[in-house]
């Protein structure tokens, strides 16, 4: 029977299973294959905070979602078109998100009485008609891989574990993706264990052939290449992109990169990535805690490295006092916060944008600091590079806000030509710069930046520290007027960064009824919502802030061009609070804190509500 191929513009797929079912890996392989055929895409993992929650329970469900398309893709998709459910718990947790009429691929062998009960199903939903309205493919995946691999020397448990590759194979067929890259990848990954590699490949091929030959599948889907700008691409997560941006900045500044960090979800991958880069001269120091992470970085900065510390909210809290030290000693430092749900330990594996106020104002005393936020995984590269450049140019710590959604989500990254990345000019004073009265560690240049004198330079011996210093000389000073002066200078230094912020880009008309103003990882959802509104003829525009401290100098003027302003945030209204002070006007807010990003439809609904 000839099977139909239907062309579609985009698709959203969610892989869900027990945390031992290998869903992250399955999703990642599907992503790579999708990237290779030239679709644009975005991904997001969703996994439990327990490494191995009890098998088959709702708490143990791990998922991975991606959206891909023949046009630009801004989010990993709101509701999936297709849900892969490897067990009853996965179906229970994720069914409510599935689009009406969506497709379910289930491993029916996992729908045993015991598993059904554990997941809270009273009867088997694959059999009792409760999935009516969906297209359900109930496949005996475990049994089929068992048969396909009956001659393999794997244990029956090992064979059972290849069922995710079977599911992947079916999806590869269903969406017309190539299997070869995964085949190659499996051979490489299990190089030492060829029988495992071959078993997985067989399972995948069995799945693919199952789609091709069995009659239950009548249709497959084709998604054309996306019209992306010319160039070379790879898929990248935000955390890896941050790491690369920092390495690139270090190289462009002729600096060695030092990372002082303590493991924490969802930031650890930055530490992991950088620790593999010893041959790039990267020094990673896994410190005893977050305080030592930042403290060691401050020391490394003092001694002349490009220094970085990476963490998430609870770690930021611990670093607070040391950030103040970096501010008063005016040392360059990049502080990366990959935000998660809080307070306290909160929801470690879930995303949130709720550390904005902590970043902007969360310190003792008047201690301003530049803060920027990345808008998508690829943008993490640029933001990390920019954070490092600004830190060294203005001799200041800089906070880069990412979040779990960006950090662990992924999307295609157009690989920049290293030669065209801007050079970062760093001038260290030399012995000749010591005047008659000695070296002046707090002398100021045109940006009121002080010199970065590296220990080991003869004649520039000087002392810095947390005690207030006299401007120019750097002597300890508790003088009233000097403290006023230094406080003002430190604040002006942050404002001076406005010079480096390019004119803001507006998506839509520069003036109109409603401006949707966002920051960070809400970019994609806002973009999609604004596009839909524009398509309906609504007067809506999008402005997205990269710098949240200082704000770009054109912010107020742009806002004045609109009757209404809407700020969607995955927090209880933190940017809105900052802007109420800045703009002194009414602001509409859309706030969620569910540990997950916005759906574009939620923003769309809010736009409709405001525009009536």
């Amino acid at each position, binding site marked *: 029977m000839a099977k139909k191929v239907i062309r579609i513009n985009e698709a959203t797929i969610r892989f869900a299973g027990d945390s031992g079912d290998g869903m992250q890996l399955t999703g990642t392989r599907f992503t*790579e294959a999708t*990237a*290779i055929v*030239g679709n644009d895409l975005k991904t997001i993992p969703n996994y439990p905070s327990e490494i191995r929650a009890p098998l088959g329970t709702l708490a143990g469900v791990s998922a991975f979602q991606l959206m891909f398309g023949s046009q630009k893709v801004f989010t990993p998709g709101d509701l999936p078109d297709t849900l892969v459910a490897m067990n009853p718990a996965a179906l229970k947790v994720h069914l409510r998100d599935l689009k009406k009429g969506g497709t379910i691929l289930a491993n029916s062998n996992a729908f045993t009485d015991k598993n059904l009960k554990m997941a809270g199903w009273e009867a088997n939903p694959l059999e009792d008609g409760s999935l009516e309205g969906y297209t359900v493919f109930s496949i005996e995946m475990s049994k089929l891989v068992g048969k396909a691999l009956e001659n393999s020397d794997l244990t029956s448990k090992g064979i059972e574990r290849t069922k995710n590759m079977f599911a992947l194979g079916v999806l590869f067929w269903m969406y017309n993706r190539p299997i070869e890259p995964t085949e190659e990848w499996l051979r490489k990954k299990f190089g030492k264990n060829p029988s495992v590699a071959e078993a997985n490949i067989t399972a995948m091929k069995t799945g693919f052939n199952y789609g091709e030959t069995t009659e239950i599948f009548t249709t497959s889907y084709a998604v054309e290449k996306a019209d*992306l700008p*010319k*160039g*070379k691409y*790879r*898929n990248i997560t935000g955390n890896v992109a941050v790491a*690369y941006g920092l*390495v*690139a900045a270090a*190289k462009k500044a002729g600096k060695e990169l*030092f990372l*002082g960090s303590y493991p924490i979800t969802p930031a650890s991958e930055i530490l992991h990535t950088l620790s593999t*880069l*010893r*041959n*790039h*001269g990267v020094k990673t*120091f896994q*410190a*005893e*805690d977050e*305080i*030592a992470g930042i*403290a*060691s*970085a*401050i*020391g*490394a*900065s*003092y*001694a002349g*490295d490009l*220094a970085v510390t990476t963490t998430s909210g609870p770690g930021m809290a611990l670093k607070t*006092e040391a950030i103040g*030290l970096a501010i008063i*000693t005016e040392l360059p430092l990049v502080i990366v916060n990959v935000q998660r749900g809080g307070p306290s330990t909160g929801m470690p594996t879930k995303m949130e944008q709720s550390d904005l106020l902590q970043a902007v104002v969360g310190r003792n005393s008047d201690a301003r600091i530049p803060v920027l936020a990345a808008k998508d995984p690829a943008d993490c590269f640029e933001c990390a590079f920019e954070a490092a450049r600004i830190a060294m140019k203005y001799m200041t710590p800089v906070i880069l806000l990412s979040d779990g959604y960006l950090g662990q989500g992924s999307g295609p990254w157009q*690989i920049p030509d*290293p030669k065209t*990345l801007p050079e970062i000019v760093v001038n260290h004073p030399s012995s000749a710069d010591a005047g008659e009265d000695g070296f002046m560690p707090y002398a100021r240049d045109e940006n009121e930046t002080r010199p970065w004198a*590296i*220990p*080991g*330079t*003869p*004649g*520039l*011996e*000087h*002392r*810095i*520290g*947390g*005690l207030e210093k006299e401007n120019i000389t750097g*002597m*300890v000073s508790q003088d009233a007027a000097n403290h006023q002066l230094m406080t003002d200078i430190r604040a002006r230094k942050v404002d001076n960064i406005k010079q480096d912020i390019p004119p803001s880009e507006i998506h839509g008309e520069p003036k109109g009824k409603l401006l949707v103003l966002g920051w960070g990882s809400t970019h994609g959802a806002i973009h999609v919502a604004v596009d839909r509104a524009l398509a309906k003829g609504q007067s809506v525009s999008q402005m997205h802030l990269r710098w949240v401290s200082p704000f770009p100098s054109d912010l107020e003027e742009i806002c004045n061009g609109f009757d209404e302003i809407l700020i969607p945030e995955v927090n209880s209204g933190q940017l809105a609070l900052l802007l109420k002070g800045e703009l002194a006007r009414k602001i509409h807010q859309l706030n969620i804190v569910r540990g997950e990003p916005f759906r574009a439809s939620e923003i769309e609904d809010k736009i409709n509500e405001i525009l009536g």
Partner: protein
Amino acid sequence: MSETNIEIQDLNLTRKDFVPGNEVRWCPGCGDYSVLANMQKTLPVMGVKKENYAFISGIGCSSRFPYYMNTYGFHSIHGRAPAIASGVKLANPELAVWIITGDGDGFSIGGNHMIHALRRNIDMNIMLFNNRIYGLTKGQYSPTSLLGAKTKSSPFGSIDRPFNPSAVALGANATFISRALDVDAKGLQESIKRAQRHKGASFIEVYQNCIIFNDGEFSDVENKATRPDNALFVVHGEPMIFGKEQDKGIIMENHHPKVVQLGDKYSEKDLLVHDETNQIITNLLLEMTFDTSNPTPFGVLRAVEAPTYDEMMIEQIKAVTKIKGEGTLEDLFYSGDVWEVK
């Protein structure tokens, strides 16, 4: 002995080169003055260029030290000096890094950084000013104050059992531990020299008198008249002898140190011989610290060789670079599955 007998280059430095212009602001009579003077005296002859010294401190009276040294210096935040110094050393391994800390700074708020800096064996020198009190905050008990200490925050006597800092250092697997007295110039200079030459993390515990808030805390060993009978100055390879008349020694009995009178019953050959490479001996000496039936030991209590973190970092960078080649941005960017849009 772990110290290598390197030839020391004469750099024509004098004490004066290490004295900055500013005024020293400790209380008159504070033990810190003597430590500073001995540091300034010793460093010029270590064969290290002045610009290669970096003094990193936390917060406390003692932590003002870097301001009084005409070297690179960083007076940081409370307790964090070992962590900051670790970054300094890793960024610039050429530097001779000194950490100045107090009993509160290094063993209360900064205890965690202290033990980890020691265990990693980063090539730095840690000098602890132990005055068994919080000086800068005006006289509260510290984690080294003895039980019963009456202080501003323990008016009825402290019920907080103290640390023996050098024993903590040993517990943290420190490769160099020495103890010195603020009033003993010779001992201080010896400790400073040995620490500076030691490759790895060196820990010096200085008994320091706070004349304002804890005066006389160490009078039994500070007082010239009583010192010989209360202090044991150990020398590697030498028997443990002390006393005004050099007539007392230490033997081991039932696995514990014990003071004996030299003469009819015991002679020098019965005595314990100090071995700074032997952890059992170091342990034994440390056990004597709070034991009033024994003298307090001073000098280099332990010195062993072990790989340093900073060297291993450099070696690892070299080794990985040798295998993978020097990394370029092209290598890095193209390390994933790459596709082209034409």
